[in-house]
């Protein structure tokens, strides 16, 4: 068990571009920390620097109180699960799991006991004599974890371990990893680009963009209090809606109308010109299904409606100036998605009877709205 402290870690490649730029994260003993971000954000590089597969350009990597910058991977005593599992195809499942123990020169009886223990935990007992090529994706994944847990390593490192599994299995293995980590209570750093994994697994989540740490917080805080446009857009599915907005006289002016803004939010944003309002789909509702009605409503024409059973999504296109459109496009590119048109996504109660092509009256909850500075991307209403 150990803590992992990253202090001002920088990784520069030959062309001088910092793949990881001045990142400091302290991982507490037994904590489960997620590194998440779009591809190319440096999350895997950071993980590989922890384990020692990548040189650290500057900064300190401290594992269990000891600076490990110059230690070879084998001297760091960390266990890692690779994206493609990296099982040794010429060895049986048993020997794959035993591999690190054999390298450490453990006695035959100790090896056997530990391998059996791990295989029991991971339900691999009947596969021990098989070769990795004959296993299913989920089984391979478990063997890779087995190889990690027999080690008594100081920490577990996962590099997108579930990305090669199909959606259903991914869900199961996610729960499995969470359960295992809680049981073993081992410090874990987990890299993923999947925000569901990030939100469900992590005690804390570090969101990265282009080598820079954007926000390190609990999943709830990330979702409810994103510090900037990037985090707000990256976390949440369907993503947060961004609308051009101006705040004047305690009211926020959106493409659909003017709405009252809570006083403390208005105070922070009043008179700042064109802002970007961020509001999540679930903070809209069909006014007709709400108890007691609402005083901040607008009418809009529903373009497409998707009914999912427990809820439904409606899509409402709107016109925006070129400048706003460009900015939204830029943002979409940053979070690895594509924005085809400027539209609002709203999540409605499944009881709602709005029809495609029809006008509907929608409620907007401005208390949950965030306002961002469009040039810096900073959230002006964070914590409010």
């Amino acid at each position, binding site marked *: 068990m150990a803590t992992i402290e990253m202090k001002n870690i920088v990784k520069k490649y030959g062309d001088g571009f910092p793949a990881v730029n001045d990142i400091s994260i302290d991982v507490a003993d037994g904590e489960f920390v997620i590194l998440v971000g779009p591809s190319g954000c440096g999350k895997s590089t950071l993980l590989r620097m922890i384990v*020692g597969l990548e040189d650290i350009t500057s900064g300190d990597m401290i594992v269990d109180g000891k600076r490990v910058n110059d230690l070879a991977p*084998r001297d760091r005593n960390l*266990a890692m699960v690779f994206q493609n599992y990296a099982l040794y*195809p010429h060895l049986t499942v048993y020997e794959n799991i035993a*591999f690190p123990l054999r*390298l450490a020169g453990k006695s035959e009886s100790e090896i056997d006991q530990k391998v059996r223990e791990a295989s029991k935990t991971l339900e691999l007992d009947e596969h021990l004599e098989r070769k990795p090529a004959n296993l299913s994706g989920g089984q391979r994944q478990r063997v890779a974890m087995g190889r990690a847990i027999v080690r008594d390593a100081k920490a577990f490192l996962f590099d997108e371990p579930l990305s090669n599994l199909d959606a259903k299995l991914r869900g199961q293995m996610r729960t499995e990893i969470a359960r295992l980590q809680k049981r073993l209570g081992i410090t874990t750093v987990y890299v993923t680009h999947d925000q569901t994994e990030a939100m469900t697994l992590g005690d804390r989540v570090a969101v990265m963009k282009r080598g820079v740490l954007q926000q390190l917080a609990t999943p709830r805080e990330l979702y409810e209090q994103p510090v900037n446009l990037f985090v707000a857009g990256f976390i949440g599915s369907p993503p947060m809606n961004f609308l051009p907005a101006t705040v004047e006289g305690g009211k926020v002016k959106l493409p659909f109308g003017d709405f009252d803004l809570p006083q403390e939010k208005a105070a922070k944003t009043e008179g700042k010109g064109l802002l970007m309002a961020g509001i999540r789909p679930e903070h809209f509702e069909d006014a007709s299904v709400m108890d007691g009605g609402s005083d901040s409503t607008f009418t809009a024409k529903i373009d497409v409606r998707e009914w999912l059973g427990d809820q439904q999504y409606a899509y409402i296109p709107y016109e925006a100036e070129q400048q706003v459109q460009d900015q939204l496009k830029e943002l979409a590119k940053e979070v690895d998605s594509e924005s085809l048109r400027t539209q609002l996504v709203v999540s409605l109660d499944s009881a709602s009877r709005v029809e495609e092509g029809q006008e509907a009256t929608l409620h907007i909850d401005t208390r949950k709205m965030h306002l961002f500075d469009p040039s810096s991307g900073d959230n002006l209403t964070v914590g409010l």
Partner: protein
Amino acid sequence: MNMTKNRVGIVIGCALILGWCLLPVAWIISLSFKSQEAITNGSPGFFPSSGTGAGWKNYEDVLKDDQFKHAIFNSIGISLISTVLSVIIATLAAYAIARLEFRGKRFVLTTALVIAMFPVVSLVSPLFDMWRTFGIYDTWLGLILPYMSFTLPLAIWTLSAFFREIPWEMEQAAQVDGATSWQAFRKVIVPLAAPGVFTAAILTFFFAWNDFVFGISLTSTENARPIPAALSFFVGADPFNRPASLLAAGAVVATIPIIVIVLFFQRKIVAGLTSGAVKG
């Protein structure tokens, strides 16, 4: 309807392929059982006509022949030594090409390509001259050196294709698991590359066994003369009336090692040939 037509086509195709590949082999075997008298008198036809069969006589004669025995011994020795050395050197180079970044990699690959296309006959004159100066003309070494260098391109290509197939992560996982670089190479890379090394060895052996140009031009006695050269000089006084059945027996004996290798390692050879020549 269409399906059965396809099936028939494939069966006919298979038969054609089998005939193509095996008919000449069957012919030379059949020829080796014709008696030497029948050959002198002329005995056209695929099979020995009745009364002209020689039984194992031709094989006995060939195996009693000192020149032939020497040639077989030379061929086996020279081919094996060239193969082992070539594969060791190629393994080092291929590992570097597949796994390391270094300046001059393109130069190595281009050199290999040029050597693979090199007209060996144009080396005969200078090597003939040089080897005599160095005193390695008509020795094993004089053949081993050219065999090694001409098999290196194929061996390097085959092996680097195999090395490339081994995921990088495998080595890194071993390092994280506590292995030194040497342990990672020994316990993970070598076992995984073994089939590739083996394939490269077979292809190298084929080349060395098959060579004719160096064999006839860099040797002058049975001291180092390999089997193809020996066969071509085999009592060849009159090029239009060779002791055909005796030669055929010698050819069959010289071919047996190749057939055995092909029978046992068919899969590996195909994999090596295609990975070494056209990348998938």
